[in-house]
């Protein structure tokens, strides 16, 4: 009996190791697939003019349609953040620093991060579901059969549109976040609008702005490539599409946070 138990224990351990190894191999394979997809999509951007109609359509779908959600989140985010720090700083008589903190946080982190999270949920999920549905309904195969490169036809326009809209939406999010904070500063902290916006303008740094734009571009590439890659790898009907969508949202959010940390660390951690 102890011998049998040992064999069964060893087999179950080996099965677990094998499953872990398979999972790891799949992840390495998928990461390679996504990186090649990014590379190919960037190469295909030379056809962007020919695909301009599709790019504009995608800009509308992934950008313009998410403006309302972005606006609400940014406005309320700015209000909540300024209220929290404003009430704390007011007790020390330092509420004049609220505008400086607001513009710094929005420019350095929150603007790109909030926009990235919203676009992941709003556009990334839609992209993964759309491309995944095309995959399971043989439309991708049909494109290949017509010698039409799916990366050029599907991925490149989505990535280009996201790269154009994400920085624009990030600026929009920063502006609305600052406006939301202005409302709180005026009504709850008793700060004049003139003094609030003067401090905002004084605290805008060029470096913060270009790092913010860089982040938004990196997030755009992450969201579009991970979503399209998951869609292209979808399988097993509706279940496969659902799985691809879920995985694409979770992976995009994780990658946004990880890359956001590294970009911040690179530019503000003493490296550059």
């Amino acid at each position, binding site marked *: 009996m102890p011998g049998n138990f040992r064999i069964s224990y060893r087999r179950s351990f080996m099965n677990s190791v094998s499953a872990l190894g398979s999972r790891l191999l799949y992840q390495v394979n998928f990461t390679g697939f996504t990186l090649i997809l990014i590379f190919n999509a960037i190469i295909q951007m030379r056809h962007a003019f020919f695909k301009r109609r599709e790019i504009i359509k995608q800009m509308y779908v992934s950008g313009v349609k998410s403006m309302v959600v972005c606006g609400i989140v940014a406005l309320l985010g700015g209000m909540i953040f300024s209220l929290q720090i404003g009430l704390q700083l007011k007790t020390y008589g330092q509420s004049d620093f609220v505008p400086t903190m607001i513009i710094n946080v929005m420019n350095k982190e929150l603007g790109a991060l909030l926009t990235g999270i919203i676009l992941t949920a709003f556009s990334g999920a839609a992209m993964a579901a759309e491309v995944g549905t*095309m995959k399971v*309904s*043989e*439309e991708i*195969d*049909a494109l*290949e*059969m*017509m*010698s039409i490169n799916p990366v050029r036809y599907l991925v490149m326009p989505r990535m280009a549109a996201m790269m154009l809209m994400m920085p624009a939406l990030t600026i929009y999010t920063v502006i609305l976040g600052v406006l939301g904070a202005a409302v709180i500063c005026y009504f709850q902290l008793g700060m004049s609008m003139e003094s609030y916006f003067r401090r905002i303008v004084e605290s805008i740094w060029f470096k913060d702005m270009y790092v913010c734009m860089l982040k938004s571009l990196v997030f755009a590439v992450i969201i579009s490539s991970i979503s399209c890659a998951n869609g292209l790898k979808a399988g097993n009907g509706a279940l496969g599409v659902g799985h691809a969508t879920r995985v694409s949202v979770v992976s995009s959010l994780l990658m946004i946070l990880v890359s956001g940390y590294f970009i911040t660390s690179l530019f503000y951690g003493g490296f550059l």
Partner: protein
Amino acid sequence: MIELVNVHKSFNDKKILDSVSIRIEKGETFVIIGQSGVGKTTILRHIAGFFDPDHGDVFIDSERMNGAGTGKKARLRERMGFLFQSGALINWLNVRENVALPLVEHKLGSISEINRIVDEKLELLQLLDSADKMPADISGGMKKRAGLARAIVRNPSIILYDEPTSGLDPVMSARINDMITRMKSELGVTSVVVTHDMVSAYNIADRIAMLYNGSIIECGTPEQIRGSSSPIVRQFIEGSLGGPIDV
């Protein structure tokens, strides 16, 4: 000419094709019959270059499809049209745009030329009235005809049909069968058709092959298949419950 030489294919350790060898002559209509899930579509996908065999080779006009790079596969596919089971229309394009897609993407002519070719194909398949409808707004049969119009829009020399008449009413099936026959007689197209529909198979085929347990167990003219003495073939073509095929 299409040639499959000793093709083996397994998915997840399950053997789907076991030493399949087929030679389809230019201008021939070759029909593959067999139970669902037996690997008929897998053969079409090998010919189209979506799958590479585990062992064996696939040749299109003496050029090897398996192992070919993306460029060579794209070049070989230019000679082929594929009618997918669901039609596989791009869902955000209307019927006309779907049919025009390969011409537009490869810039094969001016807008007026492309419109003329597309109208010609749509008329051939009696779809002109539905040209501006979206795929979601048309029936399964119309989707299939639109898929066929798109498959033939570049006048391919080979057309692969995956269940062209499944889900269609008898009149529409007869129209599709007629189309397949006309493609052969008027344009000399080589057709490979995967179907369960024996009426359709007898009508259109020059040769019929039966796939069973991953192998071609019988191949011959419709008359030879009708008169086959193989109990498996007999059970399949007669659609009877009793016999060697597991139901």
